[in-house]
C-alpha cells in the first residue's frame, strides 16, 4: 500500500465460453518506470492488453482496472485512450499513403475555421520528432519508410496524446539490432521525461537491458513481479516456461557433405527505380548443413531468397545451381519440384491461408501427392497431416482447425509442414522464430537439427544473432545487397558478425 501505481490490474479473470484465459492476473505499474511484461505466446499478454484498451469492454471480465487509483470502466478503445492508455501494437497501424505529419496527427488535426492548419501540423510533428531525437522529414510519405521509422511515427503519434502509460507490444520484433538499440535509447529518454512505459517482449536481452521492473505471466496467472536487479535471463526463462531451458540449441554431431546448392553472381535491379537490390551475391550450401544468413533489415537477405524462388520483383541475373544443374526458377512450382522450398518471413501474408484449416494448408504445395487424376483423396490428406502434426508437435484441437486461430508457433509449424511435405533438398527458413514463444522456438530449432541430420540442407535467415550463432555451421553476412563475409561458426561472436553486417553503413549503428 502507499505505492504510487499509475496503472493497476487486480485479479483479472477473463473467460471465453469454456476456456479461462486469465486466472486472476495482477499487474501493477509504478509511475515513471519501464515495466517489462514477459510471458510465452498464449500466456495471456494480448488478452490483458485488450482489456486495458477497452477492446474487451468492462463487464466482460472480472477484477478491477485502476488508472491513477481511479476505477476504469472502458467500453471501447476511445475511452481508454482518453484515460491516458496508449498501446502500440506489433502490426504498426499507419496509413502509408499519407505523410509522417498527417499520420502523427491522424484524427487530431489542428483546425482553423474548419480547415486543417497544415503549417501547425508540420511544426507540431517536427517538434515531437525532435523530442524523440529522430531525424525524419514530416512531409515524407510513410510508405517510403522502413519498419523502424514507421514505428517512430507511431510512437510520436501516441506521445502526442500525452499518455499516462505507453504500452509497446513486441516493438522490436521486426527491427534490426541497430534499430532496436535506437528504440531502447528513445525509451530511456522518455523515462527521463517522466513517461511510464510497459514493454512487452520475447527478447529477454532487451528486457534485461531496459526494464526497471519485470512481471512474468504464465498460463493466465501472474508468476512474479520483481526488480530487474533481482532477475537474470536464466531465471526469466524459468519463470516463463516453468522449467529450465539451459540448452536451447540442440547441439548435433553431423557430417556435412558435398556442395549441393550454390548461388553465383546474383544481381537484381529494381525494374522501375533502377536501384541495385542485390550485388554479386554468391554462396554455397553443403548437404546437411545449416547456413545462417545474417544482416540488418534491408541487407537483401529476403530478396536473395525470393530471387531463388523466382518471385523477386526485379531483373535478376546470375546462376543458381542445385546438384550441379542450373535451377529453373520461372515459377515457384518449378523451383519446388526441383527440391527447393521456402518458409517465408511473413507467414500470415506469404505462408498461410488463414481461413483454411490445417490440412488444407499443409497440402497446398503438394496437391499432386495427395490426389489421383485431379481428385483429392481426403484420407490421404488426413494421414499425411496427422503425421506432421505428430512429428512437429503442432498443438490444435483437430486438423480441421483454421490456422488463423493457432498461436504463432503452431502457425509456423504448419508452414514448415507444408514445405516438408514437398520433400525439399534445400529448405530456406526466413526468420523462422519471429514472434513465437520460447518453448516453440526450441522446438523449431530441434526440427531444424533433425532435418539437417536427415541430410536436408538449410538456409536460415535470421536477425537474431544468438540463434544464428547457436544453430549455423557457417554464416554468410550481408549488407546493402552484398555478401560482406562468409564465416565459419567457430569462436564466432556477435560483434564480428555485426562488424560485417554494418560494413557499408556505420552511421546506422548507435550502440
Amino acid at each position, binding site marked *: 500500500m502507499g505505492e504510487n501505481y499509475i496503472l493497476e490490474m487486480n485479479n483479472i479473470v477473463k473467460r471465453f465460453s469454456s476456456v479461462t484465459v486469465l486466472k486472476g492476473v495482477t499487474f501493477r505499474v509504478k509511475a515513471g518506470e519501464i515495466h517489462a511484461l514477459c510471458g510465452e505466446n498464449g500466456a495471456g499478454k494480448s488478452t490483458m492488453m485488450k482489456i486495458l484498451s477497452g477492446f474487451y469492454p468492462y463487464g466482460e471480465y472480472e477484477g478491477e482496472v485502476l488508472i491513477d487509483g481511479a476505477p476504469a470502466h472502458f467500453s471501447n478503445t476511445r475511452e481508454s485512450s482518453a484515460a491516458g492508455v496508449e498501446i502500440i501494437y506489433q502490426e504498426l497501424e499507419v496509413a502509408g499513403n499519407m505523410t509522417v505529419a498527417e499520420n502523427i496527427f491522424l484524427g487530431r488535426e489542428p483546425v482553423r475555421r474548419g480547415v486543417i492548419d497544415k503549417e501547425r501540423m508540420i511544426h507540431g510533428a517536427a517538434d515531437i520528432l525532435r523530442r524523440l531525437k529522430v531525424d525524419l522529414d514530416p512531409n515524407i510519405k510513410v510508405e517510403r519508410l522502413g519498419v523502424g521509422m514507421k514505428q517512430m511515427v507511431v510512437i510520436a503519434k501516441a506521445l502526442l496524446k500525452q499518455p499516462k502509460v505507453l504500452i509497446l507490444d513486441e516493438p522490436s520484433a521486426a527491427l534490426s539490432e541497430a534499430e532496436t538499440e535506437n528504440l531502447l535509447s528513445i525509451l530511456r529518454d522518455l523515462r527521463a521525461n517522466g513517461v511510464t512505459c510497459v514493454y512487452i517482449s520475447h527478447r529477454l536481452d532487451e528486457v534485461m537491458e531496459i526494464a526497471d521492473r519485470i512481471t512474468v505471466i504464465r498460463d493466465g496467472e501472474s508468476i512474479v513481479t520483481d526488480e530487474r536487479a533481482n532477475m537474470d535471463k536464466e531465471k526469466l526463462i524459468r519463470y516463463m516456461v516453468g522449467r529450465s531451458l539451459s540448452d536451447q540449441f540442440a547441439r548435433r554431431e553431423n557430417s556435412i557433405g558435398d556442395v549441393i546448392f550454390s548461388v553465383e553472381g546474383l544481381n537484381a535491379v529494381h525494374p522501375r527505380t533502377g536501384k541495385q537490390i542485390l550485388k554479386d551475391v554468391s554462396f554455397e550450401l553443403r548437404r546437411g548443413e545449416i547456413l545462417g544468413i545474417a544482416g540488418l533489415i534491408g541487407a537483401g537477405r529476403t530478396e536473395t531468397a525470393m530471387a531463388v*524462388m523466382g518471385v523477386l520483383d526485379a531483373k535478376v541475373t546470375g546462376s543458381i545451381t542445385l546438384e550441379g544443374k542450373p535451377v529453373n526458377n520461372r515459377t515457384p512450382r518449378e523451383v519446388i519440384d526441383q527440391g527447393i522450398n521456402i518458409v517465408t518471413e511473413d507467414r500470415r501474408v506469404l*505462408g498461410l*491461408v488463414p481461413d*483454411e484449416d490445417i490440412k*488444407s494448408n499443409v497440402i*497446398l504445395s503438394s496437391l499432386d501427392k495427395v490426389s489421383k487424376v485431379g481428385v483429392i483423396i481426403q484420407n490421404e490428406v488426413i494421414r499425411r497431416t496427422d503425421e506432421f502434426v505428430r512429428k512437429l508437435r503442432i498443438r490444435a484441437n*483437430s486438423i480441421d482447425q483454421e490456422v488463423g486461430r493457432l498461436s504463432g508457433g503452431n502457425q509456423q509449424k504448419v508452414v514448415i509442414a507444408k514445405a516438408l511435405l514437398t520433400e525439399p533438398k534445400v529448405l530456406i527458413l526466413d526468420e523462422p522464430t519471429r514472434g513465437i514463444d520460447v518453448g516453440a522456438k526450441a522446438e523449431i530449432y530441434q526440427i531444424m537439427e533433425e532435418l539437417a541430420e536427415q541430410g536436408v540442407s538449410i538456409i536460415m535467415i535470421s536477425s537474431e544473432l544468438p540463434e544464428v550463432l547457436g544453430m549455423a555451421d557457417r554464416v554468410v553476412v550481408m549488407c546493402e545487397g552484398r555478401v560482406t563475409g562468409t564465416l565459419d561458426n567457430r569462436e564466432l561472436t556477435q560483434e564480428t558478425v555485426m562488424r560485417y553486417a554494418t560494413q557499408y553503413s556505420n552511421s546506422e549503428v548507435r550502440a
Partner: protein
Amino acid sequence: MNTEKKETGTIMELIRANIRSYIMIIALVVLWLIFGLLTKGVFLRPRNLSNLFRQMATTGIIAVGMTTVIICGFMDLSIGSVAGATSALVAILVSEKGAAPIAAILAALVFGLAIGAFEGFWTAYMGVPAFIATLGGQLIFRGATLFITRSKSIKVNNPDIIFIGQGYVPLVIGVVLAVLAALVLIVLEMRGRASKEKYGLSVPPLSRSILKLVLMIGLITAFMIVMYVYKGIPIALLILLALAVAVDFALTSTKYGNSEYAIGGNAQAARLSGINDRKIAFISFLLLGVTGAITGIVLTGRLASGTPSTGTGLELDAIAACVIGGVSLSGGKGRVWGALVGALVMASIANGMSLLSLQTYLQDWINGMVLIIAVFVDVVSSKVLSD
C-alpha cells in the same frame, strides 16, 4: 479426460463451420411457413413449389458458376448479358437459320466458353480489375444481343428447345434417377467408411451413417412426392442439380477446388506454394461462361423466344444469391449449396410476394433489405464466432 476435451473441441469446430448453413436453412423454412400462412397455403402447394424451383433454376445455374469466380476473389457483371446473347444466338440459329437444336446448343456452349475465355484473359492474365473487365463485357454482350436480335423478339417454336425450358422429367426416369441418387449416396458412405478403416482412421459409429442416409433419402423422397404430385421435376431444375453436384465435387474434392479456396484466401501465399493462380482463375471464368450459356438456352425455351432484354440483371441476382448463401465476396469462402439456398430464398421471396400481389416497388425494397440483412447476419455471426 483429455480425449473428451478434444471431442467437444471438434464438435464445436463442426458447429462453427456449419452454423451459417443452419441459419440459412432455418431462415428458409421460416420464410416458407410465413408465406404459407399469409397465402392460406397456396404458397406451399406442389404446383407453386414446382414453379418456385423452376424460377430459381436460371439464377441458380449462373450462381453455381458465379460461386467459383467469387471464391477466387473475383466477380462477374457480364454474365446476364452473356445469357441474353446466348439466348438470342440459339433463337436465331433454330428459328431463322434452320439449325438442328443440338447444333444450336453446342454452338451456344462454345460461345459461352469463348466469352469465359475473353473475361478470364482480361482479368486473370492482363490484370484488369474484374469489376471493370466484366462491366465492359456487360455492355459488349448486351450490344451483341441487340445486334443478333436486331432489337426484336425472335419467336422459337422448336419443341426440343421449349422442352428444356418448360418441360418435366417423366415419372419413370425421375424415379430411376432418384433411386440411383440414393444408391450412390449409400455406396459413397460405405466406401468412405471402408477407406477410413484402410487408413487406420477412427470410423464414426454405424448408427450415425445410417441416420445420415435415412435423412438424405427421406429428403429425396419428399422432394419426389412434391414434384410428382404436380407435373414432375422441371428439366431446368435437373440441369441445375447435376451442375451443382459436379461443381461442388470439383470445389471440395479436387486439386482445382483446393487451389481455388487457397487463392481466394491468400493469393500470394498460394502462388508461392506453387499454385498457378492465373490458370485457376481463368478456368473459373470458363466455367461461369458455360453456366451463362446454359442459362441462355433454358431461358430461350422458357420464354419460347430470344429477346433483346433476356437476362438483364441476372448477374446481380446470382451475386446476391451467392452472398446470401454465404459465399464471401472477399474470396476463399462458401459452397455451391449455399449459393443455391440463397437463390431459393430470393426466388421464394419473389414468388411469395407476387402471390400476395405486392406492388413491384415494395418487392424491390424487400429484396434489397433481405440482401443487406443476410450479409449483416453473416458479419455479426462470424464476429461472435471468432471471439
